[in-house]
């Protein structure tokens, strides 16, 4: 066993401490979803599963979550379609407006949410469009678009263009090449882009707050409830989402690792 000097241990110890720091609020949130509390969920009063069992006891929490899910799904669909098209164009084709497109996609990521939120709210107000589900979805598609493009773009760049040439060489017209070769090979990237887009939409607060009118999303619910005290049901939802997300991420990574070791063995 090699002798481990302090210098060698410093980084790993630091990393562990940093991880603990990062995960503390998560642990706290999950823990307090089991708190036997009634109104304010700030003091530990005992362990219970009833919030998990009857999460929709607080109808307002469930309504907010439902809204967030609906918004997330619809925004994701639009953002993914528009974003995938842009990503393919940026990687595969050379055209004069490249710089413009790159900049137009980067700027939303660099613009503070207050500016985006206020701007959109002003636009809708001037256009006479009432704030509600539609305006929220429009806003979400807008800021998710850039993230979808970045994610899919990375995947398109790893796609060997010779494969599409081979498809054409083998009598597939451009539409067939796209359907049978390009799209299937891009699918993992498109799926991660969609998941990212959904996550961003589900967790968005500032832009939504400016453009939601009377509609409540899950983050908006928490913000408003923060003054009085966030009920444990909200913790339940957040913990469930967290565990689902972690599960998906870990599952894909483990699946990838298994696939790689299977290929290596054969």
């Amino acid at each position, binding site marked *: 066993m090699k002798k481990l000097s302090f210098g060698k241990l410093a980084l790993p110890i630091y990393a562990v401490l940093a991880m603990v720091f990062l*995960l503390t609020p998560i642990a706290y949130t999950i823990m307090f979803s089991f708190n036997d509390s009634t109104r304010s969920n700030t003091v530990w009063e005992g362990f219970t599963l009833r919030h998990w069992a009857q999460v929709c006891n607080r109808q307002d929490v469930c309504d907010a979550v439902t809204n967030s899910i609906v918004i997330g799904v619809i925004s994701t669909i639009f953002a993914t379609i528009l974003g995938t098209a842009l990503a393919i164009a940026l990687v595969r084709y*050379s055209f004069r*407006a490249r710089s413009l497109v790159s900049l*137009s996609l980067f700027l939303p990521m660099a613009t*503070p949410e207050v500016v985006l939120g206020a701007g959109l709210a*002003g636009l809708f107000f001037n256009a006479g469009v009432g704030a509600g589900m539609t305006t929220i979805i429009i806003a979400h598609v807008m800021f998710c678009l850039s993230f979808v493009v970045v994610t899919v773009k990375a995947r398109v*760049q790893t796609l060997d263009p010779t494969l599409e040439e081979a498809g054409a060489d083998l009598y597939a017209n451009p539409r067939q090449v796209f359907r049978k070769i390009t799209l299937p090979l891009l699918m993992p990237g498109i799926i991660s882009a969609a998941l990212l887009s959904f996550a961003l939409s589900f967790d968005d*607060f500032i832009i939504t707050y400016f453009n939601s009118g009377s509609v409540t999303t899950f983050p908006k619910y928490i913000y408003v409830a923060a003054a009085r005290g966030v009920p444990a049901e909200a913790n339940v939802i*957040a913990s469930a989402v967290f565990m689902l997300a*972690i599960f998906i991420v870990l599952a894909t990574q483990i699946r990838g690792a298994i696939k790689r070791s299977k290929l290596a063995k054969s």
Partner: protein
Amino acid sequence: MAFAAFGGGAPAKDNSTKRKGGPIVLVLILPGLIYLGLFFMTPLLSLLVTALESPDPSGAIGAYLYDLNFGNFATVVTQYMPQIIRSFGYAFAATVFALAISYPLAYFIGVKLRGSPLIQRLLLTLVIAPFFISFLLRTIAWKQLLSDNSGFVALLHNLHILAPTSYFIGTDAAVIFGLTYNFIPFMTLPLFTNLERLDIRFLEAASDLYANPRKVFRKITLPLSMPGIISGTLLTFIPIAGDYVNASRDFLGSSKTSMIGTMVEADFLQNWNYPSASALSVLLMALILIMVTFYVRRSGTEDLL
């Protein structure tokens, strides 16, 4: 940039041969571009227009007329100078702390753990795990953990770091703490992407040429990781400057820690003072655009995405 990390390690520079643009390019980019034009560019323009409006003579709340009232900007700057200074001060401090905390972490995962990609990926997942839980709840968690009755504050009292009548929540420090925490992943990911591609042989060559570890870091590692540091800094500083949740009274702040965002929200949604809110937003956006322009001048637009 940073978000390449989301895609799972994209190549650094795109050298692929491209086909010439034809009609298909229009089909691909036009829907997205039009959407952005409508719902990103237009709102920004609309902000500018609103920022120049003047109150309607009728005096009704929320009623304004189109005008070229540049005076709104002057008003906003003088009225909200404390918030402006505070926002950029917080952003600067939080960015520096985030960098200090993230760099060793990114270095550890990106350089030291290259031998075990599975553990690398696992740790990376843990780093972005906070993203998977609502950031409002994360902030509330800290608010409870560091609240006036918490063991943390008791410790500070015992160590005489805090006076017996002062507390942590509601101070500048608390807001900076919250901002730093929430944006660590934004700093870590670009650093990681950059350090992961750092060629170890440079470090070995430097050691071979008689440089001790401190010198190797200062003269080789640090300069080579500069692109990651810059993009991480941009990705952290900009959103922080516009944030207001952490600083909010209901979270980690108090009425004395309001930021630009707080004022925009107040003016827009509560006071219905649209010109004021818009002018402030335009100001914030302008300052950020200046920073982005510096960055783009340095590295061009190809690397942005």
